[in-house]
């Protein structure tokens, strides 16, 4: 299909406009507003904590910096540094829209009623996160391997959820991790080699093993030894009954 010169010009103008928009969005002022608007829409807010304070009608410079739970990089610039929404009774899934807060370093969603899984592409959503607290929610599913690529993590709290499966071994690459808790979940398997994390951080999980907890039992080749053991026991019982 051959484009007429007019259509072609229109396309060029549109593309240039989009490029200009995206350049503006790189350091995030309009996207941070969009980020918070989207988060507000995606979460249920039964006690109205967000509803009362997050007012998007007043568009003065740095207005989102006055919102409850929002800490900005600079006082008069709409660039979110930390989001602290702890203990607000919030419901819903993990708010993926946080990805638009491209300058975010700290996220605290602890003590809420959030459910569903932790996104597998979390390292794209929270590229520069240094402190992540998802504790005391209803998150289920596995701990995504992607978290191992959040290389700037200093503190990761996942305790008091319903997370299953293993803690990804790749977590040993998190060189800045100083605080890591997964207590009170449904985790199993070998604990990764993390410096300075004590046994307390892993408590109340049904099947976690390996240092600093007791070593994992070598899993027997299931079918054979189980059958032999069962047979031995039943023979024993039969013999003695007779």
């Amino acid at each position: 299909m051959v484009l007429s010169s007019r259509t072609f010009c229109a396309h060029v103008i549109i593309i240039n406009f989009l490029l200009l928009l995206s350049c503006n969005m790189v350091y995030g002022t309009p996207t941070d507003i969009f980020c918070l608007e989207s988060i507000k829409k995606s979460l249920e807010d039964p006690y109205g904590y967000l509803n009362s304070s997050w007012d998007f009608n007043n568009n003065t410079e740095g207005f989102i910096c006055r919102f409850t739970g929002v800490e900005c990089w600079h006082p008069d610039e709409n660039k979110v540094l930390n989001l602290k929404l702890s203990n607000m009774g919030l419901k819903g899934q993990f708010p993926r829209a946080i990805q638009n807060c491209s300058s975010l370093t700290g996220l605290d969603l602890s003590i809420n009623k959030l459910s569903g899984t932790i996104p597998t592409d979390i390292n794209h959503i929270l590229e520069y996160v240094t402190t992540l607290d998802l504790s005391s929610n209803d998150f289920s599913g596995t701990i995504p391997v992607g978290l191992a690529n959040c290389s700037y993590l200093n503190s990761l709290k996942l305790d008091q959820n319903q997370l299953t499966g293993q803690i990804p071994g790749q977590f040993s690459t998190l060189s800045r991790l100083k605080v890591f808790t997964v207590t009170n979940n449904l985790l199993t398997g070998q604990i990764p080699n993390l410096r300075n994390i004590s046994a307390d951080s892993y408590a109340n999980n049904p099947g976690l093993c390996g240092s600093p907890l007791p070593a994992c039992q070598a899993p027997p080749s299931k079918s054979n030894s189980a059958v032999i053991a069962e047979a031995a026991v039943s023979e024993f019982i039969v013999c003695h009954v007779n």
Partner: protein
Amino acid sequence: MRWKKTELADMQMGSFFLLAILAFGLVLNVSANTEVEVLYAWKANLIDPNNVLQSWDATLANPCTWLHVTCNGDNNLVRIDLGKANLSGPLIPQLGQLSNLMYLELYDNNISGAIPIELGNLIKLVSLDLFSNRLSGHIPDSLGNLQRLRFLRLNNNSLSGSIPRSLTTIATLQVLDLSSNHLTGDIPINGSFAFFTPMSFRNNPGLKPQKFPPPPPMFQIAPTPSAKGPSSS
């Protein structure tokens, strides 16, 4: 008229003492100005087209009634708020004598010259906001003495040289922004700097990207059920 020997001697002693007192007084003046004197000396160095410093009256005993400054209950200066005031001119070393200062907010102006090393004497400082000005020269090592500092924002200036290692000792540091300058060398990752990401340092072409240390050896872990291709040997 002829002076007697003893009278001459007396006069010599007298003038010596007078000179000594004057000299002492001068020394005292330079090393321990009042807060009014410090701020007024600074005002004299500034170009203030919006006349924001109009209320800065040197005849008062303390600056607590002036605009853009805040005192505590003891009439000591704790805040200077002159962000977005269209000021030009330098920072002066005497600003380091404002020993009770907690907030120095001078962002979004045309302030030029270097950051005085004397600002490292402001040991009660909680916030140092000099961002978006025309500051040049190095970030002084002495800023590492600001052991209560929470906010250090020097972004969008023309600062050069390397990032002082002393800043990593400030355990209270929550927000660091050194972006958009001409800084060079390595980016520290130890101490408080473990909490800072490339965002704090972006747009400094001469800064070397942070390196991550190699991971510790992994224990033998049982193979996970996740799909993985056969390992190449």
